[in-house]
């Protein structure tokens, strides 16, 4: 897969990359959970609407804030850095698959 003249000499991610990969994995799952919650609980939807004028706008801003805040926290605590990078990538991929299917199934059947 990789250029044969440049064989891998390292298999670790930097503390910042590790932190934001884990933050993204959590945020992706949070995104689906919040979609379920605001769709199933009207007061939450109304509250989110009251914050920015539209629940979707609030939803997007909440996702971005969460990624930023968690990324910062994970950099400071070193939680993600201590994890095996390949496991971290697997967690991110699994989160995206679960979150994507979660949205599709929710809006198909609920």
């Amino acid at each position, binding site marked *: *897969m990789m250029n044969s003249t440049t064989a891998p000499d390292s298999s670790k991610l930097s503390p910042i990359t590790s932190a934001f990969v884990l933050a993204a994995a959590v945020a*992706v799952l949070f*995104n689906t959970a919040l979609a379920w919650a605001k769709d199933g609980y009207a007061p939450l939807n109304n509250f989110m609407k009251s914050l920015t004028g539209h629940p979707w706008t609030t939803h*997007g801003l909440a996702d971005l804030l969460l990624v930023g805040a968690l990324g910062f926290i994970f950099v400071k605590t070193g939680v993600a850095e201590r994890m095996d990078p390949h496991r971290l990538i697997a967690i*991110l991929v699994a989160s*995206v698959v679960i979150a994507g299917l979660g949205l599709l199934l929710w809006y198909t059947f609920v």
Partner: protein
Amino acid sequence: MNISPSDVLLLAHATFGAGGCLAALWVFVETLNASPDNARRIRSGAAVTAICMAAAWICGGYWYVQFYPAEKVLILGGPWPFAHNLFMETKEHLFFITAILAFLLPIATREKIYSNAAASKLVLSLTAMILITGLTVEGAGAIIDHGVKLALLRGSSR
């Protein structure tokens, strides 16, 4: 020609989304052939991906909040209500996942991808997921558009 700001925003949204997907594909291919020579191109492609997805978010978000409610009424009264209930509802939330991954890509490409197997795997995974979710969102947009078209056609044939 009568092109309204709503039309411009909607088409810009779809174009930036497609541009972001193409840029992610560019980064994927460059990463398969990663070397010190193309490290800068990989970072440029990652930046283009993130910028395009941010622009798609801003254009599409403004259009969705300001102009979509009228189209939603049309879709729900037309023959394809699922264009909103399933496809728009899924698309508007799936897009956030695409955007989060796109914003993570420039961070991931700061690594030495040509000499780091984990970084290479991360960038390949990210770009593949951006492509899959991004193209799904694009396809859902086409179905939503068709839902509006069918509603208008049915209305005009009455």
